[in-house]
C-alpha cells in the first residue's frame, strides 16, 4: 500500500537525532567552521552515546554503518529497515551540521564499504572500527577505474604504493579503506579495496586540506610507500573476475549515494527551516493554497525550493527502501544523489540570497550551509557522473558508447 510518510518505527530515532543535532551539533557548528582542523572533542561523547543506543537496540543504524543487506528472513512483507533508518537519521544530523556528521567517530564512509563488501569474518574483525575511505588520487577523480595506486601480493601480505587525496577523516579514523589495483593491465576488475590500519608503516598523512565548506571534517592527503597490509584485509574476493568487473567495488556506492543524498537533504532543510522563519518575520507568509505565481517572488521561490526538497527527500527514501527490500537500486541511488545534490546547492544558495545581508553574514549559519552543501554534489560521484549512470541505464548504452 502506497504510503510515503516517515516510518512509524523510525520516528523515535529521528526525533532523537534531531535533539542531538539541535543541542549538540548546532552550538558548536560555527566554532569548528572557524577552527578548521581542530578536533571536535565533543563528538567522542556523542559517539559513545550513539554506540550505547545501538547496543540497547533503541536505534537501528544511526549512521553510515547500517547499510549491510540482510540476506536472511524473507517473509515477503515490506521492510522499513536499517537503510531507511540510516538515511533519515543522517539527514537529521546534517540538519545540525554536515561537517560534524562526517567527523562522527565510527560512522565513516569506509564503514559503509566494509558493511557492503566485507565477508562475515572481516565484518566481525572490523566491528567498532572507524574507517575512512580513500579512492581519489591526484590524477583521477570520477574515473576511479583508472586509479594508479598498486597492491602487489607478497606472501601473506599486500604491498601498497600510491597517493590518495580527499580522504575524509583520513587523520582521525582508526583505519582507511584504500582502493588499489592488483594489475592495471586488467582494468577495473583488478581494483580491490584494502583496510589499512592507522600507524601501519609506510602509510603517512601528508597534510590536511583547507576547504570551502565542511571545515569541521578533516580531509587528508595520504601516501602509501611499500605499505604492507595483511592479505586478510582485502575486502571481498581476491579473485580478479573480469566478467564481474567493477561491480563488487561499485556496489558500495549503491549504499553510500543515498547517504550523501540524505546529507544534502538535511543540510538544505536547515536552510529552508531558518529562511522560512526569517521570511515570516519579514512579513512573507507561504500560502499553500494559492498558486505560486499569485504570491510574492520570495514566497514563490520558497514554494519551488520546498517542492524540490520534498522530491529529493522522497527519492532518497525510495533508494533506501529498495535496499531494505533487496531490490537493485543503483539507478534510484544515482537519481537521488543527482536530485539532492543540485537541489541542495540551489536551496542553500537561494536562501542566502533571500535573506540578503543576514544570509551572507557569519552571524547566521545560512552562508555556512551554502558552503557545506557544495561538496555533496561532488563526492561519492559528481552530479555529472550520476547523470551518466542514469542515462546509460535508461538508454541501454555501455560506457564505450556513452562516454
Amino acid at each position, binding site marked *: 500500500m502506497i504510503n510515503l510518510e516517515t516510518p512509524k518505527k523510525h520516528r523515535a530515532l529521528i526525533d532523537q537525532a534531531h535533539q542531538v543535532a539541535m543541542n549538540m551539533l548546532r552550538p558548536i557548528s560555527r566554532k569548528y567552521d572557524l577552527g578548521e582542523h581542530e578536533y571536535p572533542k565533543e563528538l567522542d561523547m556523542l559517539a559513545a552515546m550513539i554506540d550505547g543506543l545501538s547496543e540497547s537496540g533503541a536505534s537501528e543504524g544511526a549512521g553510515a554503518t547500517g547499510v549491510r543487506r540482510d540476506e536472511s528472513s524473507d517473509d515477503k512483507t515490506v521492510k*522499513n529497515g536499517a537503510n531507511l533508518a540510516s538515511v533519515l537519521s543522517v539527514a537529521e544530523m546534517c540538519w545540525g551540521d554536515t561537517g560534524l556528521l562526517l567527523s562522527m567517530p565510527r560512522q565513516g564512509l569506509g564503514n559503509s564499504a566494509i558493511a557492503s563488501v566485507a565477508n562475515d569474518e572481516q565484518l566481525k574483525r572490523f566491528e567498532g572500527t572507524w574507517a575512512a575511505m580513500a579512492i581519489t588520487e591526484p590524477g583521477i577523480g570520477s574515473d576511479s577505474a583508472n586509479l594508479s595506486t598498486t597492491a602487489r601480493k607478497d606472501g601473506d601480505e599486500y604491498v601498497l604504493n600510491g597517493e590518495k587525496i580527499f580522504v575524509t577523516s583520513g587523520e582521525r579514523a582508526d583505519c582507511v579503506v584504500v582502493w588499489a589495483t592488483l594489475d592495471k593491465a586488467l582494468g577495473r576488475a583488478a581494483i580491490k579495496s584494502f583496510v589499512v590500519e592507522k600507524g601501519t608503516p609506510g602509510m603517512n598523512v601528508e597534510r590536511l586540506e583547507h576547504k570551502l565548506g565542511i571545515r569541521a571534517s578533516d580531509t587528508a592527503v595520504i601516501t602509501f610507500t611499500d605499505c604492507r597490509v595483511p592479505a586478510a584485509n582485502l575486502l571481498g574476493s581476491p579473485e580478479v573476475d573480469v566478467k564481474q568487473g567493477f561491480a563488487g567495488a561499485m556496489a558500495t556506492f549503491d549504499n553510500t549515494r543515498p547517504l550523501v543524498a540524505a546529507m544534502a537533504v538535511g543540510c538544505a532543510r536547515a536552510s529552508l527551516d531558518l529562511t522560512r522563519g526569517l521570511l515570516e518575520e519579514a512579513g512573507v507568509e507561504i500560502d*499553500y493554497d494559492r498558486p505560486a505565481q*499569485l504570491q510574492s517572488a520570495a514566497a514563490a521561490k520558497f514554494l519551488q525550493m520546498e517542492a524540490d526538497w*520534498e522530491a529529493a527527500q522522497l527519492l532518497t527514501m*525510495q533508494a533506501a*527502501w529498495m535496499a531494505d527490500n533487496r531490490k537493485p537500486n543503483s539507478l534510484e541511488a544515482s537519481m537521488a544523489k543527482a536530485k539532492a545534490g543540485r537541489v541542495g546547492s540551489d536551496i542553500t544558495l537561494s536562501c542566502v540570497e533571500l535573506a540578503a545581508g543576514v544570509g551572507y553574514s557569519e552571524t547566521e549559519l545560512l552562508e555556512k550551509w551554502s558552503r557545506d552543501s557544495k561538496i555533496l554534489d561532488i563526492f561519492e560521484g559528481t552530479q555529472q557522473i550520476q547523470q551518466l549512470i542514469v*542515462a546509460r541505464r*535508461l*538508454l541501454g548504452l555501455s560506457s564505450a558508447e*556513452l562516454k
Partner: protein
Amino acid sequence: MSLIRATKNAVAPGGKHGLSNRESRDPIGYAVLALNKLAQSELIDRMGLRKQTEQTVFTVTRSGFKVAGQAGRAFAKKGKKGADGVRVPAANAQGVFDLTPTDDEQMLVDVVSEFAAEALRPAAAEANETCVAPDDLLKSSLEIGLPILGVPEKLGGISEERSAMAGTLVAEALAKGDMGLAVAALAPGAVATALSLWGTDEQQSTYLPEFTGDDVPAAALALNESKVLFDVLKPSTQAVRAEGGYVLNGVKTLVPRGAQAELFIIGAELDGKNVLFLVESKAEGLLVEGDPAMGVRAASLAKITLQDVKVPADAILGATDGSTYLEAVRLSRLAWCALSIGTAQAVLDYVTQYVNERHAFGEPISHRQSVAFMVANIAIELQSMRLVTYKAAARAAQGKDFSREVALARKICGDKGMQIGLDGVQLLGGHGFVKEHPVERWYRDLRAVSLVEGGVLV
C-alpha cells in the same frame, strides 16, 4: 463619443490579438489593419475567392457560438432530504513506508494502461484536431468503470475506502495514452466522486444511480474562470439567495465536455464563502460555447455562461463555509498532477527510443552527453513529480491534511512537467515541432497543469 473615437476604440490594440495595451498604431499600422479586415471578410469567401478550410459543422473548435446547455435527462428527486450521504472510510496505512500499490490498485492500473495504449494513444491525434473524444472510446471508458471509481460500493460503485490514491494511479495511466482524452474520460467521474464525498442522501440518490447505470451522463466540475492571475479561491461567479433557492451569475471556462454535460458542479461565492452548486444543464440561463485551448483539446473544452440561473435550496454540495470548495480545489489539483506524470512518462518513453534511433555525425545522438543528460534529467524529475504526488495522494486517501503536499506536487509537476514537454520537443529538433510526432501535443498539454482548476478530481 465621436465616430473617430469609437472606431479608434474598436481597433485599439489593447487586449486583442495578443497585443498588450502598451502598443500603439501609427498611420501605416491602421492601413495594414484595414487591409487585414478586408482579407477576413466573409464576402470574398462567398465569391469563392478563398478555399474554405474551416470545419463547416460547428463542434467546439470555434468559440463565440453560444447554445443552450444540453437538454439532458430528468434527474428525479429521490432520497431523504437533509440526511447525510454514504461515506467510505479513509485508507489505513499501518505506518510503513511503501511504494507498492495494493493488488486492487495494480489490477486497475493494468486494465487502464492497456486501454490507454490500445484506445487513447491511437485516437489522440485526431481527437486533438476535432476537439472531440470518439464516442466508442468514451463508452469503453464506462465499461472499465472509470466514473464509479470513487463511488462507494453501497451506492453501486467500486470504492471500499477513500480512493484518492487509486484515482491518482488511474489518471496517470490514462494520461500516458493521451491527456486530452484522459480528461474527457475522467470528467464524469470527477462529479460522481464529488457527490460521493460530499453529497447528501438526497443528492446521492438523485444523481449517482445515473452514473452507476448503463447510460452515464457527461458531467463536469467547473471551477476555472478566464482571468489574468486567476485565483480559484476568489471566483467572480456569484450566488445570491433568492426565493426558494439561489441565483447564479458568472462565466466558467475550460470546462471539459461542457456542451454534452448534463450535470455541472459550479464553484461560486455565496455570502463571502466559496461554495459548490449542482446545476443541471437544462437550467434556464445556462449557455455553452466552445472554448478550445492550446492543449487538452480532446476534452472538448467549453465556456459556461450562467445568466440568472436559478437553482433550488438543496443544490449546494457540501459545506457552505468554504471547506468543501477548498477540498475540491486540492483534489482537482492532485488529479492534474497525476495527469502530468502520465504525459511526462509518455515523453520519456518516446524520446528514449528516438535518440537511440536517430543518427547524426555517424552515431546515435544518444551517444552525446548533451542529449543523454537531457534524457536522464527527464527521468529524474519525472520520478520526483511522481513521488511528491503519491505522497499527497496517499495522505488524501488516509484522510490526513494534504494541503502542503498537494501544493508542492502542483509546483513541481507544473515546473518540471513543462520542462519535460519542452525538452521532449527539443530532443526531436524540427521533427518535434511537426505533428508527425506526438511530442508537440504533449508540450501543449503539459502547459495546463499549473494553471487549470477543476475538470478532474480524485
